[in-house]
């Protein structure tokens, strides 16, 4: 507790007018400066790689693939934020992804076909539900040991890292399980796992309406209570930027076309004659990206607008205060691990669907990427600080770095070195920045 800090309201009016008014303008607008910094970093990475790769980075094809690869890490990073915010850690997510993925693969490839036959329309749903429940149970177990037996999360999940990896191996004695159910595969993206051109524009339209509706509702609510409004320009600017980003992303996704052989097959199915110049069928938004965005929205809502989220942040800020406030802190911690487990289940489904197979090495080292994404996105290990959207941006930064380096043919050891350095540097910059603005 730092009680010596100067009270912010009673700051004497200093003469540096311009910088103060800019600062107060930023404060009134409630724009997250860190977020803008992250977007700037992402822009630098993208433009940098594009120049270095001779223009192959910022192509619809590369960006589309990047978006598909980023999905599993982004999905898990949203849960990791809540875990780290409440002063815990989960090192087991990679192994858990392997175990849950392997279980889901076995069920759909070897178990269910005996009962339902291959490619039964119910298969994907049954498998997914089992995967989510399994993830939730593993999370419940780890969370309960952390919260009620008071074993540090680091230890519990370090154990989990070994146990679930071993369990993944023993489930199939190290075999590779393939192929996946054809409907299930759609969750992984791939050439058919997208919503298509029209569907993408419809989603973009709905998203824009939702953005406008959200801000309108916020203003209405604050008006109702006679509270001070955020300046109109800031609201409008944020809404315009948000809609612009959505439309831009969809435009890019719709500029990536099905490869010729797949397009030919689709044309055949739908009885369209193959034109001489070829057929350009846009892929649009892929299902994994749609799932990741959906997860992000739900998690952001839970973090900001539900009691559970408020409790998680209060535990991170001051566990004693949370306890004295009458919050059931132990159960709240258990719930963060359960949520994490469910998200691992979703990420596992996306991963095995994309690979169309499960191996016992599935998800190896994923925990490090997930933690790195959350931390680069501004989640602090001291607890209480971190945002869902930041973690998703962090995942995007990580994936962009990796994709870019693959594109540049940087070899694997060098990639690890770069990612490691970026992780430490990002946190160093963040801490310095935070120390300055806290004053």
């Amino acid at each position, binding site marked *: 507790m730092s009680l010596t800090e100067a009270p912010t309201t009673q700051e004497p009016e200093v003469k540096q007018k311009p910088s103060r008014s800019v600062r107060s303008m930023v404060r009134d607008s409630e724009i997250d400066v860190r977020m803008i910094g992250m977007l700037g970093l992402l822009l630098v990475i993208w433009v940098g790689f594009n120049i270095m790769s001779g223009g192959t980075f910022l192509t619809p094809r590369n960006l589309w693939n990047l978006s598909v690869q980023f999905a599993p890490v982004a999905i898990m990073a949203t849960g990791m934020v809540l875990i780290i915010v409440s002063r815990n850690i989960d090192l087991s997510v990679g192994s858990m992804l392997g175990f849950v993925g392997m279980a889901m693969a076995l069920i759909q490839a070897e178990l269910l076909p005996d009962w339902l036959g291959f490619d039964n329309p119910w298969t994907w749903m049954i498998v997914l539900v089992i995967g989510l429940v399994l993830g939730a149970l593993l999370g419940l177990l780890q969370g309960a040991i952390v919260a009620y037996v008071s074993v540090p999360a680091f230890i519990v999940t370090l154990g989990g890292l070994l146990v679930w990896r071993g369990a993944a191996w023993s489930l199939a004695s190290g075999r590779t399980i393939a192929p996946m159910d054809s409907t299930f595969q759609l969750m992984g993206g791939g050439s058919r796992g997208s919503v298509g051109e029209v569907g993408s524009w419809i989603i973009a339209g709905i998203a824009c309406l939702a953005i406008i509706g959200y801000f309108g509702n916020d203003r209405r609510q604050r008006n109702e209570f006679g509270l001070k409004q955020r300046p109109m320009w800031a609201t409008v600017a944020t809404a315009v930027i948000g809609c612009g980003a959505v439309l831009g992303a969809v435009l890019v996704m719709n500029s990536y076309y099905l490869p010729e052989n797949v397009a030919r097959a689709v044309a055949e199915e739908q009885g369209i004659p193959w034109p001489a110049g070829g057929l350009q069928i846009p892929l649009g938004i892929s299902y994994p990206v749609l799932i990741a965005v959906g997860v992000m929205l739900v998690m952001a809502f839970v973090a900001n607008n539900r*009691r559970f989220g408020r409790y998680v942040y209060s535990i991170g800020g001051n566990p004693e*205060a949370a306890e004295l406030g009458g919050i059931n802190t132990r159960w709240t911690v258990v719930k963060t691990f359960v949520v994490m487990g469910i998200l691992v289940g979703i990420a596992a489904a996306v991963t095995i669907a994309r690979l169309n197979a499960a191996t016992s090495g599935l998800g190896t080292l994923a925990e490090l990427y997930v933690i790195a994404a959350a931390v680069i996105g501004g989640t602090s290990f001291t607890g209480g600080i971190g945002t869902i959207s930041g973690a998703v941006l962090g995942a995007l930064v990580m994936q962009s770095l990796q994709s870019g380096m693959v594109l540049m043919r940087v070899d694997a050891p060098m990639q690890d070195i770069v990612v490691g350095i970026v992780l430490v540097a990002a946190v160093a910059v963040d801490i310095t920045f935070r120390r300055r603005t806290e004053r």
Partner: protein
Amino acid sequence: MTAPLVEMKDMNVSFGGVHAVEDVSIDLYPGEILGLVGGNGAGKSTLVKTLSGAQKADSGQIYIEGQPVTILNPRDAKALGVETIYQQLALAENIDAPGNMFLGRELISGLGNLDDSAMEAATRKIMARLNPKFENFKTPVARLSGGQRQSVAIARAVHFNAKILIMDEPTAALGPAETEQVRQLMRQLKSEGIGIILISHDIHDVYDLADRISVMLQGQLVGTVDKDDVTMDEVLAMIIIGKLPEEVTESELQDLHG
């Protein structure tokens, strides 16, 4: 005289082999400020924690408005109208004032979502009364001054209509102006019929504000005296040598100033 608001009878708390509170009984009346004083480790904080639900008593019985009650956790205490302002304020540093004021008792809308606008409006309303200069409703409380943080903690207690208010060293971290503000507030709450238990190291504070003073020494109650019947030196004697005013000798009082 009216019935006591709170009676704590024969309270005992021990940690391992150490008797932190031993057979202590105190009571509190509506509209009264009871000073609870004693040196470090006298057991005063532990005693009131059994009332605020932060510490379980090993034995003893608490009565609120004559009814025997069981207080196992902070939620129980709050349901009975007992609000506490802790020495360390118990604020979540990363959360803003409305979030802290409603911590654990958030206002929610029909669908179970947090109603931040309603919470901010309620906080503004209560702050207009307690601390009109307060205007940082959206900054994490870590960035507020000691006095502002204190007013958040007090606002929390006042908003939820405390009948019984426990204040553990409420002015320890405050400057003179802010201390005066808190004292003013305590007098106001007292006039509204709220019973206040004031724990403090500062004997002047207690002597100025309290109606009665209970003194603890090494886990035991030395005694409870009416402020008007004793001098400050006599209270000091109770705190330091554990003797009641009628037992203490003139030379012992002299020694206190040695």
